[in-house]
């Protein structure tokens, strides 16, 4: 389950920012994840809730926004919704983005 390593990296940074802000509790964590990243959101949530037990991020909600890659034919400019290498026109299709995993915002409770 490679989601575990993602969850750990995420938790480390969340707890670092929480400490920096003297947070008492983490309520919500906002993420942006590229659609081409091979990650199962349910597994991520499960792993995160397991490893955050006993920390102030326990019970925090993960809010995920998915980001689409740009898939476009380099010859005719046609855009696609799915990964494909060659366009009907014979042109090579370029694929950009869709691979990010960003922590954007944390909602936390402070004194």
């Amino acid at each position, binding site marked *: 389950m490679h989601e575990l390593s993602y969850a750990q*990296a995420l938790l480390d940074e969340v707890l670092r920012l929480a400490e920096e802000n003297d*947070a008492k509790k983490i309520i919500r964590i906002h993420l942006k994840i590229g659609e081409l990243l091979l990650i199962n959101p349910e597994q991520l949530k499960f792993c995160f809730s397991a490893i955050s037990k006993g920390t102030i991020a326990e019970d925090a909600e993960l809010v995920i926004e998915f980001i689409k890659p740009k898939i476009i034919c380099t010859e005719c400019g046609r855009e696609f919704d799915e990964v494909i290498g060659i366009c009907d026109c014979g042109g090579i299709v370029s694929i950009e983005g869709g691979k990010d995993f960003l922590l954007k915002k944390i*909602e936390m409770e402070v004194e």
Partner: protein
Amino acid sequence: MHRIEVDAEYDVLSLNKRLAKENREFLSKHGVIAINVMGAIGSGKTLLIEKTIEALKDEVKIGAILGDVIAKDDYERVARHGVKAEPLNTGKECHLDAHLVHHVIEKFGDVDVLFIENVGNLICPVDFDLGENYRVVMVSVTEGDDVVKKHPEIFRLADVIIINKIALAEAVEANVDKMVNDAKSLNPKAKIIKMDLKKNIGFEEWLEWLRCALRSRGE
């Protein structure tokens, strides 16, 4: 008590990216070409590495990192060919990452080619850059001829795609040309090789690609 919102701009993948970059810098400084050998369980990854070592013994200095949940068996198979090798146990993890490779990479500064056999799995290793120069993805016809289509991401990002065990295609009713076409339409730039390691099909083509990669080193 009150609530605040803290903006962050943190790349959750940044640690792996940084260590992959360090691996890549080490390799390039020492003129080593690293090849991430990925693919399904039992597709022939270890045998490919073994046969390549035997074929190029007098020509090229080869090293190998063998990653697996339990890496000892593959390590012993490769080490008995007399090359420098290192097992990497991933334990519960389903993939190698740049950190694991980082721990052993310094032992391989003196080789020409470093093979890194990844955990047999067409999904989990895909998003973990190890710092390699090339990705080779190996599947065999016995996994079914829809295996390429079902795992677009790993094939899209490959430099070489090997369809192995093609001599068994008829017995398992797999259509090799369909697999090749699926691979081509996902990744028109990849080198695609139809292979059978037991019948010596496609192996010369693979060696040719590898020699070519070695010649273009540092360019």
